[in-house]
Structure formats: structure tokens, C-alpha cells
């Protein structure tokens, strides 16, 4: 619970603002003049067909890519000037596996937590693993898990690492239907507690609250 | 001229092959450097011209509509 409280304190003036963002690949413009805002307690879905630049956008916003022009503001200031504070609030789950295949889910999450300065919180990790439906698999090497189970290990980070901004790239990949519903519920809970979520997905979200959709690609140009 | 005959000059007292080989390869390498720079410049110019042409074509076609 301390997590949420800690997050809550900062949430007051959470706010990611994208101003006139431009990015291209091989002379093909992915997006230009992109502007949107994401406040605490909001969810923004980035939509668009394959290859429209959703992943590229998310990587820029996570600070992993500098292939852009324009501004990204966090709490009113440029991201580049307060990387450290921003990272403290950010939880990014990308396309990739995000886990070491030879290690068990427990070991993987222990390491993930240590990276965020959280040590000795096995209890929280175990409860997170239970939440994502992996109880019984805590000690098994990840490479012997199915595609969906591996994805779930990665998603378990949502529950062990305190953050006020989740950036998720296709979190539903390989997840079964019941799992999708559950994740949607978690997102909903997080948002209603004041968290901010930015995600891409090709699913049609059934989300309790209202949410914004930012569309990239051809659809956006029409 | 230090050498008496052109033949002397070419043979360099037996060391001709070494010396001429060195200078030959050096001339080759240095001129390749210049040549590569030149040809890359031509390529770049061509590309820029193509871009300009494309831009003109597209702008004139949009103004027609």
C-alpha cells in the first residue's frame, strides 16, 4: 500500500505533454506535429495500423530513443532536464521479453526490483506473481513457460514497482481472454487511483473510464 | 639530374622495381581517394537534383488540382 501512497504524493502534478513531435524513418515521416497530453488519472491509447510508429513513439516517450524533433514535457519541464525524476515515476513495458529466460520468474522480478532500489520484497513479488496467475511457476526457469506465461512475468512488474506512469507496448500480446479482462481491470484501478497510462494495442479496449485515443498513421492524416 | 641515363633512372641500381612499385601504388591510392570523393559528390548532387525535381513535380501537380 505504501506504493500507492508514495505514488499519490507525486501524482498531484503528474503530466506528460507532447508538443509538435516529429519523427521519421528512412525519409518516411512517422508522425509530424503530434500533440497530446496525458494527465494523472488518465489513459491514452495510441492506435494505428502496423508500422505507423506506435512503438517508435513509446520508445521516445520512455527516453530510449532520441530520433525526434519537438518537445516532450513532464510536469511542465523538458524530459531531458529531469531524466532522473522522470524515471523514478516511469514503468515501461516494451515489445521485448523483458525477462532472462534461464532465470525463474522470482529471480527475474527480484532483479527488476533491485534496479528500482527495492530490496527484500519477496512478499510483494510473490503476491504479484499470484495476481498474474503464475503461482506454482515461481521457481521454474522462464524458458520453459509458454508464450503467454512469459508475458505475464513481465506484466507482474506492474505490481512490484511503484510508478505513477505506465507506458505499455501491446501488453495483451499472447495473453488469453480472461487475462485480457483482468489486465483491463488493473489498468482501470491504477487510473482511478491517480495513475497515468499510455498504451498501444490492437485490441478494442473495454475500459471502465473514459479514455483518449491518439491515432497515428494513415488514419491520422485523413 | 643525378642519373646519367633514363635507363639508370628507371633501374635505380637494381632497386627500381621497389621504388617504382611504391610510387605507383601511392599514386594509385591517393588518386583513388580523390576519385572516390569526386564520385560521391556526383552521386549526392544527382540525388539532390532528383529531390528538387520531385518537389517541383508534386507542387505543380497540387496547384493544378
Amino acid at each position, binding site marked *: 500500500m505504501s506504493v500507492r501512497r508514495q505514488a499519490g504524493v507525486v501524482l498531484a502534478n503528474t503530466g506528460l505533454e507532447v508538443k509538435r513531435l516529429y519523427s521519421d524513418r528512412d525519409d518516411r515521416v512517422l508522425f509530424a506535429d503530434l500533440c497530446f497530453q496525458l494527465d494523472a488519472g488518465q489513459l491514452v491509447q495510441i492506435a494505428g495500423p502496423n508500422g505507423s510508429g506506435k512503438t517508435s513513439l513509446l520508445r521516445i516517450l520512455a527516453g530510449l530513443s532520441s530520433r525526434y524533433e519537438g518537445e516532450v514535457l513532464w510536469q511542465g519541464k523538458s524530459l531531458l532536464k529531469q531524466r532522473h525524476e522522470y524515471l523514478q515515476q516511469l514503468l515501461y513495458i516494451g515489445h521485448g521479453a523483458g525477462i532472462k529466460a534461464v532465470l525463474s520468474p522470482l529471480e527475474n522480478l527480484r532483479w527488476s526490483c533491485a534496479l528500482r532500489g527495492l530490496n527484500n520484497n519477496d512478499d510483494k513479488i510473490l503476491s504479484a506473481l499470484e495476481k498474474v496467475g503464475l503461482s506454482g511457476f515461481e521457481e521454474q526457469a522462464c524458458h520453459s513457460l509458454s508464450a503467454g506465461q512469459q508475458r505475464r512475468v513481465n506484466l507482474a512488474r506492474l505490481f512490484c514497482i511503484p510508478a505513477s506512469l505506465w507506458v505499455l507496448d501491446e501488453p495483451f500480446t499472447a495473453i488469453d481472454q480472461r487475462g485480457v479482462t483482468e489486465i483491463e481491470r488493473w489498468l482501470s484501478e491504477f487510473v482511478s487511483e491517480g495513475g497515468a497510462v499510455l498504451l498501444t494495442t490492437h485490441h478494442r479496449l473495454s475500459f471502465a473510464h473514459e479514455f483518449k485515443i491518439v491515432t497515428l498513421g494513415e488514419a491520422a492524416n485523413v | *639530374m643525378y642519373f646519367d641515363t633514363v635507363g639508370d633512372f628507371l633501374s635505380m641500381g637494381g632497386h*627500381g622495381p621497389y621504388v617504382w612499385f611504391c610510387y605507383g601504388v601511392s599514386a594509385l591510392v591517393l588518386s583513388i581517394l*580523390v576519385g572516390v570523393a569526386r564520385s560521391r559528390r556526383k552521386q549526392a548532387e544527382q*540525388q*539532390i537534383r532528383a529531390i528538387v525535381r520531385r518537389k517541383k513535380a508534386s507542387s505543380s501537380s497540387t496547384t493544378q488540382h
Partner: protein
Amino acid sequence: MSISSTFHKWGSPRWFYQFSGKLLPWLAGLSLLLLVGGVIWGLAFVPADYKQGNSFRIIYIHVPASAVAMGAYMTMAIAGAIHLIWRMKLAAMVMKAIAPIGASLTFLALLTGAVWGKPTWGTWWVWDARITSVLILFFLYLGIIALHQAFENRDAAAKACAVLAIVGAVNIPIIYWSVEWWYSLHQPASISFTGQSTIHPTMLRPLMATLSGMYLFFTWVLLLFVRVEILDRERNTRWVQDQICGESR
């Protein structure tokens, strides 16, 4: 949306392009004059060395190539540092352009040295300290070129090469000095490279000519490469398009 770029006051590619354009003919003329003149002078007019005979005439290409190859690496590393610290794009272009030129000159140094070795030492190759460090320098250049080619993203390539060039530059003195030490440790039997053959002044003057000619040549070719690079990078800007299409009109 037009590609806006924030240029450094004194690192502006545009300014550099126009400034270097004026320099080019002078550099080209002077360097070729000095190189060709010095070589002819050295080949045809200087008396033969009393010990080595005529093979010493290789010196007029060997020494300039070696010296400039060494200097080029340091220039490259400095350009890399400038690029990393001040994020100057021009420095990245200079760095990228130097690598192939430096590698070519290093190759020439190795080749002319090896060919010179055959008549003087009776062998193409010895593991002499200086020769070994030039070989290593050659590999350092190759590493930079290969690294640059491996990246698809130009900016990432420039930054990565800058890191490598700096690491390499830190290492060059260490490498040079450790190789020297290693070589003297072994006290090799027959061949001594840094022999105290005091060069006669008549031999020295053409050498000075080719040496300075080589430096100018290096600068000239460097400018040629950098200018192409500028055109490539800025091809979507107005001024480049005006420049090229204006010239042809």
C-alpha cells in the same frame, strides 16, 4: 514540416561548406605542386644514399604517409570528443571523413615500409616496435570504419565512433610505448629500425616538401569528403538545393 536543425554558431555546416569552397583550389594546387615537385626532386635529383643506394628514395612517400597517418588519428579523436561534448554535427562529419583517409595512408605507410624493407633488410616484414604500432594503428582505423558502417543510424554511428576513437586515442600512447618496451626487451638480433642515419640536408629538403604536401593533400581530401557529407545530410534543406541546382543553371 521542414526539418529544423539548431546549428552551433561556429559549427554551421552551411558556413563551413561555403568557406571551404573557397579554400579548395588553393589546397589542391599547392598540395599537388609540393607532392609532385618534391617527389620528382627526390627521385631524380638527390644523390643516392651511400649505404642503401637508391632504395632510400622511397622515403619521400614513406615518411609523409606515416606521419600524416599518425596525425590523422589524433585529429579524428579530437573531432570525436568535440562531437560528444558539444554535440557539434560538423565534428561528426570530420570524424567520419578522416577514417578512410587515415586508413589509406596507414596502408601506404605499411606497404612502402614493407617494400623498402626487402632491399634494405632482406625481408618484407620484421616485428619492429614502430612497425608493429603502425600495424595496430591500421587495425584501429579499420575498427572505426567497420563500426561506422555497421550502424544504420547516422547519429548513433557518429557517437559510437566518437567513443571508440577517444578510447583508442587514450590507448595509442600506451600501445606505442608498450610495443617499444616489448621490442627493446627482446633485443632483436639483426635489424634496427631507428638507426641513427643522419639524413643529409640535400635529402631532407625534398622530404620537407613532400611532407608538407602530404599534410595539405590530407586537408584537401578531408574537405572534399566533409563537403559531400554535408550535402548528403542536409539534402532536404533549401540552401543545399539552391547551391546544387543553382550551380547547374
